[in-house]
C-alpha cells in the first residue's frame, strides 16, 4: 500500500446525489425543532389538537365496543414489552469470576477484608457464578447514540405496530409464549438474542463482528446468587456494572486521579436485590463509599472509590468491561490510556508469576514495546473457549506476564502466549496480535 492507494480509495467515497437534498430537509427539521416559544403557534397547535380530539371522541362514541378495545392496543403492547418478571429465567447468564484462572494477581488494596479472600475462594470453587438479570431502566438511555436516529425509531414503531397485530387485544402474554427479552441486554440488530444465551456470545466470525461480552447480571432473589454477587465487588452506575479492578494502583498517587464526585454508594446487596431497587443508582456490594470519576479516563469505563481513614488511603478502581462488543484490541486496551503514558514496563515468566516470585526484568526498549502496543490495539479478539488449551499447557517458557506501570500510578497486566496471543484478566478474551510484530517483541523478552 502506498499514498496513491490511499488517495484513490478514499477518493472513491462520495456522497450520493440526493445527499444534499436530504441533509437540507433534515437541517430544516432540526431547525424547526429548535425554534423558540411562539404563543400564536402554540394556540394554533392547541386548536388543532382540540379539534382532532373532538373528532376522535365523536368517532369512538360511534364505534362498536370491540373496535374501542383494539384502539387501546398500543398501551397494552408497551406493557407486554416490559413483563413483570423482568426477563425472568430467560435472561439467566453465567459469568466468570475475574480471578478464577489467575489466583496470583497482586491485590493493591491494603484493606482487603476477609470477605474478599473468602470470595476468591468461593469464586474458584464455584468457578462460574450464575445470576439472574434485573431490569435496568437507564440502560437504554446510557447506550443510546448521542445523535438522533430516526430510522431506528421508525423501526421500533414498525415493530410495535407488528406486535399489535400479532397480539391483537392480549395484554399479557401467556406463560408458555416466548416473552420479550429483558431490556438490560444490549440490542443490536437482534444479536442480543445470542448474548442472552451464552457466556460470551458468538465467536469471531468471518466478518469480524466482534465478541460480545454480556452485561454482568445482578441477582433478583435472595438466594445463593446473592452470595455470588457479593464476592464480586461491584458498583452500579448509570446502568452499567463496574467490577473491582484487579489491576495495580499506586495508592500514593491515587489522590491525583480523583475526579468529580459521582455520588455515594448505597450499601449492601440486600438493598438492591429487592425487585424495585434494580435501577437504583450507585447500588453496590462495597458498602457505603464515595464514588468518583477518574481523571484521564472515560467514566463509562472506569470509576473509583477513594477515602482516607487515619491518614491511610483506600482507593480502588472499578472498571466496566462488560456489556460491550469487542471488535479489536483497541476496544479494550485503548481504554487504559497506555499510549504516551508509560512509566515502566517489566515482565516475568510464568514460573515467577505463578509462584509469586516477582522475578521481574525491566524492558528497556520501549520503542519495540510501542510497536507491539500499536499491533495490540489492532489485534483480533478470539473466544477464550476456543483457546482453552493455552491455559492447560502452562509451560514455563510459553508465557510472559507484562507489568505495565503508567505515569498516573495505574497499571495494566498482560499475559502473553508464545503463539501470539495476549490475554487480559477480567475480559476473558484472547487477542491475536500480528505475528511478525508479536514475534519480534517476544524474542526480546529473554
Amino acid at each position, binding site marked *: *500500500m*502506498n*499514498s496513491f*492507494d*490511499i*488517495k*484513490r*480509495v*478514499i*477518493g*472513491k*467515497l*462520495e*456522497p450520493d446525489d440526493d*445527499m*444534499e437534498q*436530504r*441533509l*437540507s430537509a*433534515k*437541517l*430544516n427539521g*432540526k*431547525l424547526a425543532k*429548535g*425554534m423558540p416559544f411562539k404563543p400564536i403557534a402554540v394556540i394554533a397547535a392547541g386548536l388543532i389538537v382540540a379539534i382532532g380530539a373532538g373528532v376522535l371522541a365523536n368517532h369512538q362514541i360511534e364505534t362498536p365496543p370491540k373496535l374501542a378495545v383494539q384502539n387501546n392496543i398500543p398501551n397494552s403492547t408497551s406493557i407486554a414489552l416490559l413483563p413483570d418478571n423482568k426477563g425472568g429465567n430467560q435472561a439467566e447468564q453465567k459469568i466468570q469470576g475475574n480471578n478464577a484462572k489467575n489466583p496470583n494477581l497482586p491485590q493493591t488494596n491494603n484493606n482487603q477484608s476477609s470477605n474478599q479472600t473468602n470470595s476468591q475462594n468461593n469464586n474458584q470453587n464455584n468457578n462460574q457464578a450464575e445470576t439472574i438479570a434485573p431490569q435496568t431502566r437507564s440502560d437504554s438511555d446510557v*447506550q*443510546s*447514540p*448521542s*445523535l*438522533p*436516529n430516526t*430510522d431506528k425509531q421508525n423501526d421500533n414503531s414498525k415493530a410495535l405496530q407488528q406486535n399489535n397485530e400479532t397480539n391483537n387485544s392480549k395484554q399479557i402474554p401467556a406463560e408458555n409464549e416466548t416473552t420479550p427479552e429483558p431490556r438490560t441486554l*444490549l*440490542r*443490536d*440488530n437482534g*444479536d442480543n438474542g445470542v448474548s442472552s444465551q451464552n457466556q460470551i456470545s458468538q465467536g469471531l466470525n468471518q*466478518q469480524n*463482528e466482534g465478541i460480545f461480552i454480556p452485561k454482568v447480571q445482578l441477582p433478583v432473589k435472595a438466594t445463593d446468587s446473592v452470595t455470588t454477587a457479593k464476592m464480586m465487588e461491584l458498583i452500579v452506575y448509570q446502568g452499567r456494572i463496574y467490577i473491582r479492578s484487579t489491576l495495580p494502583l499506586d495508592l500514593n498517587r491515587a489522590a491525583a486521579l480523583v475526579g468529580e464526585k459521582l455520588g455515594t454508594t448505597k450499601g449492601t446487596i440486600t438493598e438492591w436485590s429487592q425487585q424495585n431497587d434494580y435501577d437504583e443508582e450507585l447500588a453496590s456490594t462495597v458498602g457505603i463509599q464515595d464514588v468518583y470519576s477518574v481523571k484521564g479516563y*472515560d467514566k*463509562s469505563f472506569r470509576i473509583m472509590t477513594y477515602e482516607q481513614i487515619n491518614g491511610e488511603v483506600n482507593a480502588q478502581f472499578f472498571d466496566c468491561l462488560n*456489556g*460491550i*462488543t469487542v*471488535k*479489536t484490541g*483497541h*476496544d479494550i486496551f*485503548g481504554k487504559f490510556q497506555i*499510549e*504516551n503514558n508509560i512509566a515502566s514496563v517489566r515482565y516475568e515468566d510464568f514460573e515467577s508469576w505463578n509462584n509469586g516470585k516477582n522475578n521481574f526484568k525491566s524492558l528497556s526498549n520501549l520503542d519495540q514495546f*510501542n*510497536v507491539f502496543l*500499536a*499491533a495490540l*490495539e*489492532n489485534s483480533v479478539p478470539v473466544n477464550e473457549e476456543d483457546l482453552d488449551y493455552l491455559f492447560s499447557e502452562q509451560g514455563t517458557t510459553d508465557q510472559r506476564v507484562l507489568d505495565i506501570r503508567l505515569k498516573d500510578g495505574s497499571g495494566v497486566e498482560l499475559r502473553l502466549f508464545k503463539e501470539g496471543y495476549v490475554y487480559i484478566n477480567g475480559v476473558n478474551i484472547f487477542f491475536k496480535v500480528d505475528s511478525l*510484530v508479536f514475534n519480534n517483541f517476544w524474542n526480546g523478552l529473554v
Partner: protein
Amino acid sequence: MPQWPGSSFSTKYKLYGDMVFKIAMVHLGNKDDAEEIMQEAFYKLLFKSPTFNNDGHEKAWLIKVTVNLCRDTLRSVWHKRVIKMEEIDNYYDDPADFNILKEIISLPMKYKSVIYLFYFEDYSIKQIAQILNSKESAIKMRLQRGRQLLKIELEGNENEQL
C-alpha cells in the same frame, strides 16, 4: 433565532460536503452514520461556528468538528456497533481497493484521523497537530504507527518529514 440560510447550506455543502462525508466514512465505516455526522457537522457550521479568519480556518474547524463527532459516536455506541462493510464495497469495483479501505477503517480512531489528513488532505504534521489540537510528536507517532499497521511504503521525502 438563527435564520435558515438555505443558500448558505448549498454553498457550504458544495465546498465541504464531499470532505465531511469522506471523513465520516473513513471513521465510521457506514453511510447511515456518515449522513448523521454530516447533518450535525453542517448544523454546527451554519449555526454554531465562530467567525473564521479565512477559508482554511473554516475548513480546519469543520474537520475538527467532524472528527470529534465521529469520535463521540464511536464512544457512545462503540459497544454495539457492527461496521457494515458490505455497504462500503458498493463504492469499489476492485476488491483490492475495498480491502485497503477496510484496513484503514479497522485502524484505531486516532490513527485514522492522522492518516486521512496526511495522505488525503495533504496536511503537514504541524497542521494536523493544530487541527487535532495535539502535539506534533504525538501526531508523528500516530502517523508512524498508522503506517506500520497499514504497511504503507514510504516515498520521496516522507522520511524527512518525520
